[in-house]
């Protein structure tokens, strides 16, 4: 199962002097859920457009399922399904009609069409809305239908370009559930792009951080987060100063800071050092009221490698979360 299903070879796309995708070479394994994480304008959509053969590379090439995206584009098209960033359904037609057209365009055997359409509608929970025109659908429902449509011809690779952009939290959860479900199908590889770190973190086996057309780093989410070595252990106690002195003496790497009754210890691997910290505290007779471990999230990883925060809306969301945590703590 360690076969390579997608391999790009110095793939490049220039729009005039703007290099949207810059010499990207990467391999994606069969059965992986692979994430491309990067801010708006990083080149994610351009990369996907080339892989799905609707945009010609300026130079370089790629192979999908063994077929070259330039020379063998019709076979590449048969091997892939794609959910575009922007809507691509016909809203003047019903859900079933949209799926029917897709089945016909992809040459799904007529004898199997009905059954498969029923299956994919079931999968995304739209069976009872099959005869409705899509102009009555919500954004989330259209997205789900697009995912269903992308699966109809049993693609080996499914591309999802910003699958949850602009959706409300509930629809987003729904889509995440489907993607997790797809992951269990071993024969299918999923490539998704996103500028939501949490999304990449929670769904992907491996993540490539992409910025200005280049891949900055590529690895498993845990490795990425562990790699920047910055867990924080927060201990609450009545004797913060004493605890600080003791821990400093224990030679635990990293910064130790006090704020009120909190002692914040920065460590590389909290799960390994926590027992040692607790042991030292107990030995010194210090009562610890509570312990919190805060792991770095993908945003920390992103800042670490690119030196900048992700797009504005993401920053705003994050600030919102932090503010909420503060409010909770204040209580």
């Amino acid at each position, binding site marked *: 199962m360690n076969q390579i299903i997608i391999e790009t070879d110095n793939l490049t796309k220039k729009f005039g002097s703007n290099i949207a995708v810059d010499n990207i070479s990467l391999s994606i394994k069969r059965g992986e859920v692979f994430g491309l994480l990067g801010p708006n304008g990083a080149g994610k959509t351009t990369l996907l457009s080339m892989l799905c053969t609707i945009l010609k590379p300026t130079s370089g090439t790629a192979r999908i399922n063994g077929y070259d995206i330039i020379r063998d584009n019709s076979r590449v098209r048969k091997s892939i399904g794609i959910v575009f960033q*922007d809507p*691509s359904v016909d809203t003047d037609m019903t859900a079933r*009609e949209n799926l029917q*057209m897709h089945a016909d*365009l992809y040459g799904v055997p007529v004898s199997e069409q009905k059954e498969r359409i029923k299956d994919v509608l079931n999968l995304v929970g739209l069976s009872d809305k099959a005869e409705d025109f899509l102009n009555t659908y919500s954004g989330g429902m259209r997205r789900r239908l697009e995912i269903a*449509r992308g699966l109809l011809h049993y693609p080996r690779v499914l591309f999802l370009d910003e699958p949850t952009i602009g959706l409300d939290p509930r629809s987003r959860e729904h889509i995440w559930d489907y993607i997790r479900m797809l992951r269990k199908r071993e024969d299918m590889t999923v490539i998704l792009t996103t500028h939501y770190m949490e999304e990449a973190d929670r769904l992907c086996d491996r993540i490539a951080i992409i910025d200005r057309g280049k891949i900055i780093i590529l690895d498993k989410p845990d490795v990425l987060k562990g790699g920047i070595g910055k867990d924080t252990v927060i201990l609450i106690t009545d004797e913060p100063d004493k605890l600080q002195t003791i821990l400093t003496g224990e030679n635990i790497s990293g910064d130790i800071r006090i704020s009120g009754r909190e002692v914040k210890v920065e460590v590389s691997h909290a799960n390994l050092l926590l027992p040692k910290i607790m042991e030292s505290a107990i030995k010194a007779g210090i009562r610890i009221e509570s312990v919190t471990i805060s792991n770095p999230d993908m945003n920390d990883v992103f800042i670490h490698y690119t030196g900048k925060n992700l797009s504005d809306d993401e920053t705003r969301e994050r600030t919102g979360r932090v503010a909420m945590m503060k409010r909770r703590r204040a209580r």
Partner: protein
Amino acid sequence: MSEIRGIYTLWLREVKKFLREKPRLINAFCQPLIWLFIFGTGMRFSAGIPGINYQEFIFPGLITQAMLFTAMFMGISVIWDREFGFMKEILVSPISRPSIFLGKMIGVSTDVMIQGIIIFPFALLIGIPLNFFMVIKALPIMLLVTFGLVCIGLIFASLMKSFEGFGLIQTFINLPMFFLSGALFPLSQVPEWLQVVSYANPLTYGVDALRTVMMGESWVQLFPMELDLAVLIGFDILMFAIGTAAFSRIE
């Protein structure tokens, strides 16, 4: 085989959408009616052509006009498809570009033929002597006119990035092709320059052929039927070739 299925589904989509849009269908009924009753009656009594019933004279011209306008308008649906993203779904599918063009072309052509045929009953209503055999002979000619026109509409749509250019098509394609086709006045009595320009218009040959089969004795042919048909077929082949090439370039 799967290409044929794809072409079929593109055809079906065009026809379904055409028949579902009620305002367009109502318009399709009413516009020729207004031309025939008001314009036709007015011209008949103010600028009549000796020996010819004017309404009978413009009837084939109005069929052509309805088909021309529908072909251009429906061809533009390609721009809608692009605007609303469905074009990407078609373009990323395994079906070839020439097949996409063919599917669209026969789909829109079906719409245009429906539009043309809708008008026939009005002929009886205003007393034009039309019989079954005339209609049967008219249909293949209408089809030849339709194919070329639909290709033109699709070619423009594939080149245009937005709807802004549609007004230009209206002014510089639709109206000149209509007015310079002999649809409204006989070309035998106009100044030479107008005649020359009209003879360069393929629709002139379509209107001439339709009058030949529908008006019988009272119509003096501009060209022999063989020439009319040859020009129309040549026009179709040329436009089809250009259309296929234009669609192959779409990214």
